[in-house]
């Protein structure tokens, strides 16, 4: 570069800095669409809309599996016995303490709705298996109870709860927490 007295800023300095600044802004702006295009597109977002499930056909004691946002959701129609077992547990002794009342919606205690992905490394646990009246994960031996709580094995957390709401006593919408008091 040509030598310039460092005491004064020349027009060339100004032009260099101005061009550099505009170039930097342009480069950042160019990056925006390149990075944004990897986010879920409109069709993927549309396919992730809430799913309505009719609970009528689900028999007492039955567990069904539906998909919402590509995740398996377990819907467990709990018998009185299942509910008692879940409520009687000493909460403080659980690996991830949570009372049964926090796992279900008030007035609908017979319905357990949880995401069917083991919180260890992501396998789908098997229903009506294991010693806790719940699920058994065949990958590394985690066991969940009738409230979907981890009881034994390497999984650190209880099965996660999806957002859902009761549209009526026999219909739920998975994907939306309604504002109605439960």
């Amino acid at each position, binding site marked *: *570069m040509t030598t310039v007295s460092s005491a004064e800023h020349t027009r060339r300095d100004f032009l260099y800095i101005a*061009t550099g600044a505009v*170039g930097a802004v342009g480069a950042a702006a160019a990056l*925006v*669409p*390149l990075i*944004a*295009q*990897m*986010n879920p*597109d*409109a*069709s*993927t977002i549309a396919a992730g809309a809430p799913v309505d499930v009719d609970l009528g056909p689900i028999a007492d004691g039955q567990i069904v599996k539906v998909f919402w946002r590509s995740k398996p959701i377990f819907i467990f129609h709990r018998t009185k016995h299942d509910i008692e077992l879940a409520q009687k547990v000493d909460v403080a002794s659980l690996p991830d303490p949570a009372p049964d009342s926090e796992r279900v919606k008030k007035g609908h205690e017979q319905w357990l709705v949880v995401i069917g992905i083991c919180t260890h490394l992501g396998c789908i646990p098997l229903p009506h298996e294991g010693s806790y009246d719940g699920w058994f994960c065949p990958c590394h031996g985690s066991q969940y109870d009738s409230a979907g709580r981890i009881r034994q094995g390497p999984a650190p957390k209880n099965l996660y709860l999806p957002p859902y709401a009761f549209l009526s006593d026999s219909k739920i919408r998975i994907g939306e927490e309604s504002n109605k008091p439960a």
Partner: protein
Amino acid sequence: MSGPSTYQPQNKVLQWFEKRLPIGGLIHSSFVAYPTPRNLNYWWTFGGILSFMLGVQIVTGIVLAMHYTPHVDMAFNSVEAIMRDVNYGWLLRYVHANGASMFFFAVYVHMFRGMYYGSYKEPREVLWILGVILYLLMMATGFMGYVLVWGQMSFWAATVITNLFSAIPGIGDTIVTWLWGGYAVGNPTLNRFYSLHYLLPFVIAGVVVLHIWALHVAGQNNPAGIEPKTDKDTVPFTPYATVKDAFFIGCFCILFAWFIFFIPNYLGHPDNYIPANPAQTPAEIVPEWYYLPFYAILRSIPNKLLGVCALFGSILILAFLPWLDTSKVRSARYRPMFRQFFWLFVIAAVGLGYLGSKPPEGIYVILSRVFAFYYFAFFLIVLPLLGIFEKTKPLPNSISESVLGAKA
């Protein structure tokens, strides 16, 4: 790059690295300190523009490839999903499609610059031939990219171009079946075009490295066509050429942006928004504008095999340009007769492009034949003879004298 590098990094870490892999010195001697003729005009910025466009096409292409499906039943819809659903998908697609046109526009300006100023002459023959190879690679890449859309024009262009090879006597049909991977253009064809369309730009990048290397061995040509004699004839590449290139890339991008944001489908054909139908040929099959001159040459010859030979010959003849032009004077600035024939050549080339878009009947066929004849005559008759008969103007004593006058 002759002699040891003058690059001395101040930073200790950079010094350590430089001793082990002297990339800093390479970049410094090639693009910072590199002596550049001081009289280069804006026609010399198109090499930088081409490198920029190659980068744009590769980046947008890789990103588009994340959303495109190369199967005959899903390709067209996947492109529409990119346009409608993918975040900024419309922008990426239009940049890539119009980018191809801008890429070819820049390469034609770059080639015409080379022809006008004699940049293909000794000692830059290999540089020029590498350029012809790059041009051929670009044409193959652009053709295959257009097929991927799987619209009506995509499919029928693929059929026509692959069928060209059936003109080869004896083995022609075997070659065409081999290209297709089937009995007609179909899914195997689409899949392999996708693979090759992803591959060739990186081959282009590699040949560009050779092209720039060959350039740096001989040094840039310049508008006067005479070699630099002293340090007064050159300036360091950075900041002079770097800033000139950056400025004109900015101007070029304004034109590019005009197409992307205001007339993104102007250069395309509406028939390519119709999904490919193997049972129905469109009323007129036309390639993209940048292939039109060669399309006109192909159609101007009534014989199938000779037409194909003329098509490929019209591109390959460029490689022989350094030997066909016998003149010892490089730049058209000092070659008044050559200049006139050159501009006639430009008119013929552009004219052939226009005629390629017209149906092959009546006056269009006659004009195509006239212009195609001149195209070949320029290379095979005019250039060899001009070297013998042309009276050239006297050359300046040096580059700096031609720029600064006799008091240089």
